[in-house]
């Protein structure tokens, strides 16, 4: 997937300013940056929820990306299986029941299939949320702050699950405030600041940009903060 000169304005405010980058099959990419940097706006445009003001996103033809919004987008009065079944039918999958069964197994929720989503824990709701994004077996899965509302144990299980998807060839793009997560799970990071793309590369490459013989940032988070500071953010 290629993004070319992507811009988005809300009135007079520029949320994204001429972003260009590419994504490759099977890679895990983290979008990081301070609050208001444009992370959610970028993911929303990639997902097709928002339209760009300028520029273009070229996707593999005929394939819709998987989209996992930050807040679980689920019907709390429906059961896990009913939520999955509804979106499988709306996706016009050839075998919706098969897709539901497979996704229940993949998310390890088979034994809770008939439980109302509103009664599930935050972690399990997030699994259903991701499961819906994966129903159509998309080539790219977009996740907006996927671990924001989870406890450490749930986070660990989430990343294990996402790691398995990447191993099977799904491109993962996620936004996060937790730069340690980005360093640990992402093969590449996109750093946004005030709507501009400030950096694209591996976490190690980002650390090297701020590392001098006199200044050792020590960890990735410190390096990231210094990187932003050096660029006026």
């Amino acid at each position: 997937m290629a993004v070319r000169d992507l811009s988005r304005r809300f009135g007079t405010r520029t949320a994204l300013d001429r972003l260009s980058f590419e994504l490759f099959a099977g890679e895990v990419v983290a979008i990081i940056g301070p609050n208001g940097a444009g992370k959610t706006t970028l993911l929303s445009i990639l997902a097709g929820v928002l339209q760009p003001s300028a520029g273009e996103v070229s996707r593999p033809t005929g394939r819709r990306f998987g989209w996992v919004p930050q807040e679980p987008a689920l019907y709390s009065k429906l059961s896990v299986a009913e939520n999955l079944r509804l979106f499988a039918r709306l996706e016009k999958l050839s075998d919706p029941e098969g897709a539901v069964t497979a996704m229940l197994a993949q998310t390890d929720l088979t034994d809770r299939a008939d439980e109302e989503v509103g009664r599930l824990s935050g972690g399990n709701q997030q699994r259903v949320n991701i499961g819906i994004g994966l129903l159509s077996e998309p080539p790219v899965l977009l996740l907006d702050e996927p671990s924001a509302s989870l406890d450490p144990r749930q986070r660990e299980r989430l990343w294990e699950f996402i790691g398995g998807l990447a191993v099977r060839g799904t491109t993962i793009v996620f936004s996060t405030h937790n730069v340690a997560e980005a360093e640990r799970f992402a093969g590449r990071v996109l750093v946004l600041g005030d709507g501009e793309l400030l950096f694209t590369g591996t976490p190690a490459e980002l650390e090297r940009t701020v590392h001098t013989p006199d200044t050792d940032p020590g960890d990735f988070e410190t390096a990231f903060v210094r990187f932003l500071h050096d660029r006026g953010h």
Partner: protein
Amino acid sequence: MRWLLIKDLQILRRSPLLVALLVVYPVLIALMIGFALSSPPGKPTVALYDAVPTGKGSISIGNQHINISHYADQLFASINAIRVNSKAEAIAKVKNGQAQAALVIPADIVSQINSLITQGVGSPTVQLILNTRDPLERQFAEQAINARAAQVQQAVSKQVLGVAVADLQKVLNGGTLQFLGQSVPLLGLRNTRAIVQGTITSLPANSPLRTALGQVVAFSNLAIGGFNFASPVLQKIGSPLTIQQVQLAGKTTPTASYAAAIAVIVSLMFVGVLLAAGLLALERSENAYSRLVRGLVTPTSLLSEKIVISAAGAAAVTLLMSAFVSLFVHLDWARFPLWVAALGLGGLAFGALGVAIGGLAREVSVASLMAFVLTLPIAFVALVPGDAVSGTLRSILNAVAFVFPFRAALQAASNAFSGAAPGIGWPLVHLAVLALVFGALARLTLRRFA
């Protein structure tokens, strides 16, 4: 759209409290409105102190007796009377809330009326004591008594005038008059004139009496002419106006059917608007909207689904309600297809209004509150009678009623229920146009969701 419909029905099935509120509450309100509108007004309770001695309640005019007590009894048709034995007791009944008003008829009321009729002197007066704590209650009692008192006064006047006219006829044509229990013959003006004219012709041509008697004949002519004119005029004064009702076009809606139509349309409005607004806002509050419109469903399809499900729900509830109401009020079952058309299109228009409201809200609770707050004035404005307000305000109210579906739905339903004029065609077209307009407005409000 089919899967979204099934999903919304599943959600509604699992929200029994919400469904009960959406259905039972408006139906109860609507039935209460209908009952209030179709029930006759109640009678105020009035403490009555009648000081006129028994058997002294009639007056004599000429050879006729007028029973004043008979007319006083007519007051009881408009009030629930509590007879008391003194004015003080009557006042006490009002003060302690047992009666809304007290009516005191003085002992000399008959002699006062007699004096007025026979001598033109005096002003017969009864006393009405009103409770001033509750202005509406006071106005109700006052209007009930005044209206009936006016009828009594008119009836008494008519009878007195009848006596006067009869006496005039006797003065004109002659007859007998009852005086002190004796029949007294009365010659009458016409007979007097004939006698005088006969006398004149028998007198010598140069008799000086001819001139004097000629003046008597001239006076008789003048008096006869005047009485001829006065008699029918006096007869008419008793009831100066005859009201002839002319219905200009078609048949009018029976009051009970109209009340039923109001009750049904109030329910249609509540269910349609609240359901549509709530279901659309639910997509936002569950964060599902963005997931749906990224290629799975178009915003127009989503809106259409909400409008259709709310219209179907509202129409189903109100059709059942109409069937129930028809047990008590005559509704024309032969026009049932028109019931379906009126309530179906009305439901679509209200559903479209509901999604326009739901598109403005982020939360179901806010959408429901907005829907509730907006629909009440819409119904109120549409129900204000056109002639109850002055020109400019009437134009404004008519314009407001025109741009919302309540009045058109009410016209359609009242026609469907009874075949009343005006016809159902224009209201149905009006509802269809309003459904499209509010649907388009809702589409604009959905931009906020993005």
